[in-house]
């Protein structure tokens, strides 16, 4: 238990991806079964433990200590799980003679009934160290929130076994905690687990961005073109009555889209884009799609207002036949015939875009027929469906990004290599009537600049600081003083969380405008116009 607790403590505070991977692989390498597999399940969200409500936790602790002292403590710390882990009084004279393993903790929690759950939890907390108490409370309150995605955990497994992460993703849904056979294979002690489970995820094929000189080397007749839809990449797999909708990283998202899952009554594995609306009438915008994302449960009203559908563009398997080795042209033919048999309110085909030369396609790309199109996809007619991101067969050719000139307002220190640099920038644009303009923050960016530019901005921040709060500095920014940043971004959403009412997608610094006076930076109206277009 203590090693798991220590892992969580480190992961929470380690910002870099590589640092997290090292911590995870070291843990998986040094901890034995079944603890490591249970830790993995806790991280990927595959561990089932009956939840304990915060009110119950609070009740348990105030039975054991003065409520006033608990109140002072909670006010100071601000996080219930952390406060309880710190203040939990060990019973008088109680010295645990055994530190329970993660497996023992999980077993005791899973065996607890609803009525004796709190008592079992209290006993576990009595026996645990502070860090372990925090980990146990995280397990029972649901959601570790340690900044590690299931995908990252799988990458750590791939690093451990020196295999491609696609292999882990393909296996994943046929496995169950504590994953003993998976670890045995990764450590070279056993064969790769063969799964009898149905409707498994197939690792997806990804594309490369078109670079400046790519197209002149390519023959347009070798490639099919499609619109690039700005939805969610999904894979719909139905096999022997098992239906699964997967994200591009193999997470099962069926639960979030019950309306679409209900229409999956076929035997196939299809690749496509999840969008909202009715494909026969109108496709919703990205803002519409957002109504369906990151929700724990979806009300019938939302499902009705924003019905989910799938715009299909590839077929990996149909009626038990694996099509992945066939050329794209052949798969496309099978797909067209197959999609015609499905519920037309839930499935349609991503149309091909006819073009004869790159100039024609460029014109189409610049003026797409729908706001949710973010460019075009190019796919070689003869390409098989390959896992990963092979260079050559598939390209994405995105619409040029939007740019805006904004003024640097706040800078925050980075982490790791950048911990002595102010490298995260909050920028704003002008708002308000002439003569009393004010900067309103519209976004935050932490890449897009070179190392040399980073040094220059860092010096500017240090020389122009007007206030400090922890790792953040407020930078001089008014009509006469300020650093103008050209910010590139992919799109704009309405936002009620930001004072400016807008949220940028994928913002990055594209140029430093040392030459431009702060007063000439853009106004909020420029962004609002983009929102309405």
């Amino acid at each position: 238990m203590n090693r798991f607790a220590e892992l969580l403590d480190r992961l929470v505070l380690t910002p870099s991806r590589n640092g997290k991977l090292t911590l995870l692989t070291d843990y998986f390498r040094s901890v034995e079964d079944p603890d490591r597999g249970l830790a993995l399940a806790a991280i990927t969200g595959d561990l089932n433990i009956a939840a304990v409500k915060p009110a119950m936790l609070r009740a348990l602790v105030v039975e054991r200590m003065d409520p006033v002292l608990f109140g002072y403590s909670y006010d100071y710390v601000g996080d219930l799980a952390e406060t309880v882990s710190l203040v939990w009084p060990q019973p008088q004279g109680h010295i645990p003679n055994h530190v329970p393993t993660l497996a023992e903790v999980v077993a005791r929690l899973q065996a607890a009934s609803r009525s004796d759950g709190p008592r079992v939890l209290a006993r576990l907390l009595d026996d645990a160290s502070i860090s372990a108490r925090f980990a146990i409370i995280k397990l029972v309150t649901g959601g570790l929130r340690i900044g590690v995605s299931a995908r990252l955990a799988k990458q750590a497994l791939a690093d451990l076994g020196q295999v491609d992460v696609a292999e882990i993703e393909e296996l994943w849904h046929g496995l169950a905690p504590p994953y003993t056979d998976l670890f045995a294979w990764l450590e070279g002690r056993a064969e790769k687990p063969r799964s009898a489970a149905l409707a498994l995820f197939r690792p997806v094929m990804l594309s490369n961005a078109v670079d400046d000189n790519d197209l002149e080397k390519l023959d347009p007749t070798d490639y099919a073109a499609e619109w690039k839809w700005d939805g969610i990449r999904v894979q719909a797999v139905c096999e022997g009555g098992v239906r699964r909708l997967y994200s591009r990283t193999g997470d099962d998202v069926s639960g979030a889209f019950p309306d679409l899952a209900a229409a999956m009554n076929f035997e196939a594995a299809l690749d496509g884009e999840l969008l909202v609306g009715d494909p026969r009438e109108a496709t919703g915008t990205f803002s519409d799609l957002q109504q369906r994302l990151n929700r724990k449960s979806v009300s019938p009203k939302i499902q009705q207002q924003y019905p989910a559908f799938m715009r299909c563009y590839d077929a990996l398997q149909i009626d038990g036949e694996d099509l992945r080795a066939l050329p794209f042209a052949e798969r496309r033919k099978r797909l067209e015939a197959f999609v015609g048999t499905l519920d037309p309110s839930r499935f349609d085909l991503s149309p091909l875009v006819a073009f004869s030369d790159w100039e024609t396609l460029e014109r189409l790309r610049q003026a797409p027929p729908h706001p949710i199109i973010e460019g075009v996809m190019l796919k070689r007619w003869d390409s098989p469906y390959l896992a990963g991101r092979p260079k050559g067969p598939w390209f994405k050719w995105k619409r040029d990004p939007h740019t805006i000139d904004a003024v640097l307002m706040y800078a925050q220190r980075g982490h790791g290599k950048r911990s002595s640099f102010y490298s995260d920038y909050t920028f704003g644009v002008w708002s308000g009537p002439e003569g009393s303009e004010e900067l309103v923050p519209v976004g935050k960016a932490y890449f897009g600049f070179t190392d040399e530019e980073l040094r220059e901005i860092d010096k500017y921040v240090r020389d122009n600081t007007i206030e400090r709060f922890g790792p953040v500095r407020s930078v001089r920014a008014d009509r006469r003083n300020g650093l103008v940043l050209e910010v590139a971004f992919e799109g704009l959403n309405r936002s009620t969380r930001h004072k400016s009412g807008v949220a940028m997608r994928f913002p990055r610094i594209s140029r430093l405008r040392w030459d431009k006076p702060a007063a000439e930076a853009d106004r909020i109206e420029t962004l609002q116009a983009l929102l309405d277009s």
Partner: protein
Amino acid sequence: MFKAMRASDLLKPRPEGLYCPPGDFFIDPVRPVGRALITHGHSDHARSGHRSVLATQETLDIMGLRYGEDFAGTTQAAALGETLDIDGVAVTFRPAGHVLGSAQICVEHGGMRIVASGDYKRQKDATCLPFEPIPCDVFITEATFGLPVFRHPPDHEEIARVLKSAAQFPERSHLIGAYALGKAQRVMRLLRDAGYDRPIYIHGALAKLSEYYQSQGIDLGRLEPATVESRGKADFAGAIVVGPPSAFADRWARRFPDPISCFASGWMRIRQRAKQGGVELPLIISDHADWDELIITIKETGAEEIWVTHGREEALVRWCELEGIAARPLHLVGYEDEGD
């Protein structure tokens, strides 16, 4: 028992600090005064410019290193455990376990005994003498970590985490932020006690005090300046560097390869504190008493009354009330937590 003297007549807060009217002296005054008794060398307790200073020899030495030899008009070294008479007031210095030279000051007059403990801790520390509980009528305690959430783990466990991380990330350097007086030397000594025998690189701000600790027989092993300009980045791969916390946000830190920032402080108990400071490896090592140490110490002194100063007074006062011990906050101004 009859007391010829009320506690509040023996010691009382004044804007300059805690004042003893019958002895006409101040304890840890924050402004220049005629006669100052000083518990330890941290700058919020030990200021320059007093006419006369009474403190342990180590504290006097430390003040000299920090402020220059003319930091006071006259100085007198107080030997630990020896009682001095100051205008009829009996004054005894006893170890506080906070940093090298730190002392509690026991003040006695007319049958009333008050102990001003300054800053203290109970965890053992190889760089200073351990705290000695003194039976008294009134105990003046600090409350820097006066909340039940502050529980300091054993310091060797914290140091083990740095060494484990250094083994896990051999290509990176570990920068340990630690205050220049006390904490830094304790961290170095803990590294040595844990068997770390490579050179420890130190920021220039630690050099004088670390040298002084070594001269007092506290072995810190081989220390090398981390300020050599000719040293390449790669030379610091796998290195452990100790410096004042403020230096790590500074351009100074750029000479190290992909550093992992560590901070040795009792505040690191709270995750959000670590997160806000950009600390990747918090080390909960404190020179102040944690909650459990505070309440054990209060009980051990047997004091009937507790005065609580700098820190989170309200929780400790509440605890005393629940225990039936009279307690009140002593509103002294000017003390920060330089030592943590």
